[in-house]
């Protein structure tokens, strides 16, 4: 049986090495700050006001639909793959919080439009807010979150399609 003392020594040494390596990392974890989960960071009940990410500006379904039909906005679906496959805004890019397999290409596609609209599946928009914050950190200037989320878009009969995200590698049939 391994000695508990040796295990404890390895863990203690490892923790010290980890903190040292973090300090040297090009993108260190903020050890003096709190790090919230996607849902919490976007205004969830557990997020303190000082740490919560500033929510992205909202855009109504009517305004977003007009921009969609005139091809002036790109759309980002922040929901899971299954929900995306069942139905999404026409030509939306599937970009959940877990990321896109080819994030660089997805971002390049979004940069083709002057405005990016992010939506998720519920009207708290917590997940969409997180993805929007990530897009803004990636340098996209005008990122907004769809008021009422996907249910409002679907209820309004705005342009939609169904099928899995091909570039995500889930299945064929992206419309």
């Amino acid at each position, binding site marked *: 049986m*391994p000695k508990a003392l040796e295990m404890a020594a*390895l863990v203690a040494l*490892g923790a010290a090495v980890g903190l*040292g390596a973090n300090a040297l990392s*090009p993108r260190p974890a903020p050890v003096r700050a*709190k790090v919230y*989960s996607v849902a*919490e960071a976007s205004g969830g009940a557990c997020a303190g006001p000082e740490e919560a990410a500033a929510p992205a500006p909202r855009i109504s379904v009517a305004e977003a639909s007009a921009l969609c039909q005139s091809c002036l906005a790109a759309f980002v679906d922040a929901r899971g793959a299954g929900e995306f496959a069942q139905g999404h805004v026409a030509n939306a890019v599937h970009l*959940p919080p*877990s990321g896109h397999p080819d994030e660089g290409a997805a971002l390049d596609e979004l940069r083709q439009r002057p405005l990016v609209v992010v939506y998720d599946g519920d009207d708290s928009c917590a997940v969409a807010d997180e993805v929007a914050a990530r897009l803004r950190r990636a340098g996209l200037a005008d990122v907004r979150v769809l008021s009422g989320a996907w249910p409002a878009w679907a209820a309004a009969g705005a342009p939609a399609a169904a099928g899995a995200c091909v570039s995500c590698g889930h299945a064929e049939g992206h419309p």
Partner: protein
Amino acid sequence: MRRAPAALLRLLLGALFVWAAAAKLPDMAGFAESVANYRVLPPGWVPLLAAALVGVELVAGAALVAGWWPRAAAAVLALLLLVFAAALSQALLRGIDLSCGCFGGKETASWGAVGRDLALFALTIASLALGPGRLTAPGAGAAP
């Protein structure tokens, strides 16, 4: 006769953990975000524990490769793998859509990742049971 396979298993497992830790080092902030998304730790603990976790992976993996306290290193890594499998399982059961944070990539959490962790756990336990085999550090002891 089983000393060579034991040594090979130890070296491969150790190298895998060193690689897994090294892959996370360029983006520790991203790894901390992945850890937070499991929603099992208080937000104030997340960055410290994420950094410590990577360090423990690195040191225990390196110890396993070097044959320095190999049984203790294997036991620590086995415990880590159980923690990883439990954290992944609870996230999947709660329907949380997240990047698993495995190997510093964007791999989505899945039952396949849980299965991989459990398979590695079994191999780590096997390494613990078989002992270090040959090629251990001088004075490391703990040969079976």
